[in-house]
């Protein structure tokens, strides 16, 4: 028996990150949503389907037969002019990789949530950021959320960023599987009219279209080793790189306008927490930052001069903002929720070391890896991260990563 309940749109919600994401989708008014379920994204797909069924969201819903088709359906829809949305993670993202790789190169402003999940094997269905980290060189804009409210707000902002004419790139809005996807808190729902005004009218296929009124060949063979091909290919690659760099300012502007209109502000690229008088800092990404900030507060009460740097925008990498933060401290410990196999550290640690090249001083940089496959990163784990990082001020920097959950 199913109850039909009269739906009114609330102002305040008590919901988890997946429902918040679905509300972000509702507010963004996509034309088409394609979904395929995968843990821990499934309830997000269900919420969207329910909203379409209830008439809360006026969108075409395609229940495709797999993630590969999910993104492919959206490619077609976007080329025909649709604002589009989907969500996936983990193995779904891996299976989706073929169209995923192509999305930014076609400059399609698709927004996709990644409800971050660790990679198999070992077989697991739990959170971790290995999925998003593994595809960070593919040319999507990648934003990482800390809170449930931020998930909703960032999905709406993602359309503004993706569809900016100087960007025209797909955006991944990442929220951690389990702790954000299923974590329930109080959030506020922005006003629809204000969101409509913020986003403007979608115009996603002004530059490339599949439309009998504007015939063209889309994605002809381009390249080769002679003739005009090589330089053409380079031109498109350069354009893509430029679009990524343009996104940095567009992300900042979108967040600034969001704060002005809706009264909630987030650091768009890199957040500095208690950093100005800090000797050292821990670097975090995603939902772990909450416990990390609690740990920093506790350490400050003990007299430790420690701060926290949180990355929201991982791609394009906000080199200037990040270097500005790094320049304030004398040591950093980077906490990753994924592994960078090639460097025996975490991916954000690898990014941090690359950014250090641009810093005034070469400071020690420790890799800490935790929260894999659903493991919790508590304040106690960050107490340890802080202690391990403090040691860098007076001793050598270990080349091995610290595995935070190894003794849990």
């Amino acid at each position, binding site marked *: 028996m199913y109850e039909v309940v009269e739906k009114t749109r609330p102002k305040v919600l008590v919901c988890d990150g997946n429902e918040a994401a679905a509300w972000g989708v509702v507010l963004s008014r996509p*034309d*088409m949503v*394609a979904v395929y379920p995968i843990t821990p994204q499934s309830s997000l797909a269900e919420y969207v389907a329910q909203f379409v069924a209830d008439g809360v969201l006026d969108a*075409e819903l*395609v*229940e*495709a*037969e*797999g993630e*590969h*088709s*999910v993104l*492919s*359906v*959206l*490619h*077609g*829809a*976007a*080329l*025909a*002019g*649709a604002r*589009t949305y989907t969500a996936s993670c983990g193995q779904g993202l891996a299976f989706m990789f*073929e*169209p995923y790789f*192509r999305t930014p190169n076609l400059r399609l402003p698709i927004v996709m949530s990644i409800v971050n999940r660790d990679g198999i094997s070992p077989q697991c269905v739990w959170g971790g950021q290995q999925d998003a980290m593994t595809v960070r060189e593919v040319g999507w804009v990648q934003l990482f959320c800390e809170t449930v409210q931020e998930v909703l707000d960032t999905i709406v902002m993602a359309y503004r960023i993706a569809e900016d004419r100087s960007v025209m790139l797909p955006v991944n809005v990442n929220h951690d599987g389990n702790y954000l996807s299923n974590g329930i808190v109080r959030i506020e729902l922005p006003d629809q009219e204000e969101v409509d005004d913020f986003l403007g009218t979608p115009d996603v296929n002004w530059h490339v*279209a*599949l*439309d*009998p009124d*504007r*015939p*063209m*060949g*889309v*994605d*002809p*063979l*381009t*390249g*080769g080793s002679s*003739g*005009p*091909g090589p330089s*053409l290919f380079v031109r498109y690659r350069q354009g893509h790189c430029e679009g990524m760099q343009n996104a940095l300012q567009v992300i900042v502007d979108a967040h600034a306008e969001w704060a002005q209109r809706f009264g909630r502000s987030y650091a768009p690229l890199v957040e500095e927490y208690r950093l100005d008088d800090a000797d050292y800092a821990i670097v975090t990404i995603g939902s772990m930052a909450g416990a990390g900030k609690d740990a920093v507060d506790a350490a400050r009460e003990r007299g430790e001069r420690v701060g926290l740097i949180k990355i929201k925008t991982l791609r394009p990498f906000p080199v200037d903002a990040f270097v500005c933060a790094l320049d304030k401290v004398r040591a950093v410990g980077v906490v990753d929720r994924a592994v960078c196999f090639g460097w025996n550290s975490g991916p954000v640690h690898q990014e941090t070391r690359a950014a250090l090249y641009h810093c005034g001083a070469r400071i020690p940089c420790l890799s800490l890896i935790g929260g894999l496959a659903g493991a919790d990163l508590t304040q106690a784990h960050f107490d340890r991260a802080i202690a391990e990082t403090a040691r860098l001020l007076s001793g050598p920097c270990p080349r091995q990563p610290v595995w935070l959950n190894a003794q849990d």
Partner: protein
Amino acid sequence: CPKDALKFVTSARLFNRWGDLEDLFVPGLGGCQGCNTEIIMRHTLRRVGPNTVLATPPGCIPGMGSVGYNGMAGSKVPVFHPLLTNTASMLTGIRRQFKRKGRAVTALALAGDGGAGDVGFQSLSGAAERGEEILFVCVDNEGYMNTGAQRSGSTSFGAWTATTPVSGTSRGKKQDAKNLPLLMMWHGCEYVATASTAFMEDLYEKLDKALAASERGFAYLHIYSPCTSGWRFPAASNIEVARKAVESNFAVLWEYQPEHGMRLSRSIDDPVPVTEYLKLLGKFKHLDAGQIAHIERHVAEQAQLLGELARIGRGVECGAHATADAAVM
């Protein structure tokens, strides 16, 4: 003779009906000399018309320049490379978005057998199951011809390909081809048919029906396309090869409509010996007696199965129209 006269009337009639319409591919495409696929492409798009979005997954069709090279387009309708794997999915998004905006645009695929039935089968099957309004034409040249004639699921038993060579203990492909159009029929599509360029009037009729069906749901048209390069026969013989394939029951022409069930488009009785077909093709020239017997048996079994399905189909039709038939009689 009267039979031939009828045939010329047919060809002239098709010319009079469709010959005046603009060919919607550019004049120059890089198909091989005598390419059957190019015949299929040009007639199909001429018939389907310009209010179309055309998908050509990687293979001979875009390989000859249908989408274009380095900024130069090969088609006069909106055309694109899907991935080899996602043709039906991309067309799903296109068709649904236009429909949402109140526009009826034909979503047309011209795909090879690999992009349709092997690596592309998941998206094809998914779109057919969902009843997406797509006209999906599979141009079956029984292998990966664009990449140098490798085996596909559609390659027939015994055939030489670049990955089923004839050498030492290897005598060509060891398995029969999968029957992709029958698989599509079991999806419950709005329309499924097989066709051949050697039977052009039949092909045009099926295009008509498939196009109309694609306004209501999934339409699948499977067209046999002998490949002069990969099958090893002279370019000038292409239509002759296509004709013999049908006349020998190697490729049976049939169609399926939900309201009629399956029907044979042409009698399967008294076929010419399948060896008449095999001997035309270099890819079969190594066949031993056992392999030929296998093919003969397989062709006969397939024809019998299709005949049985058609008999059931007619039964349904007769049942449904019994009253009307009686009245006529």
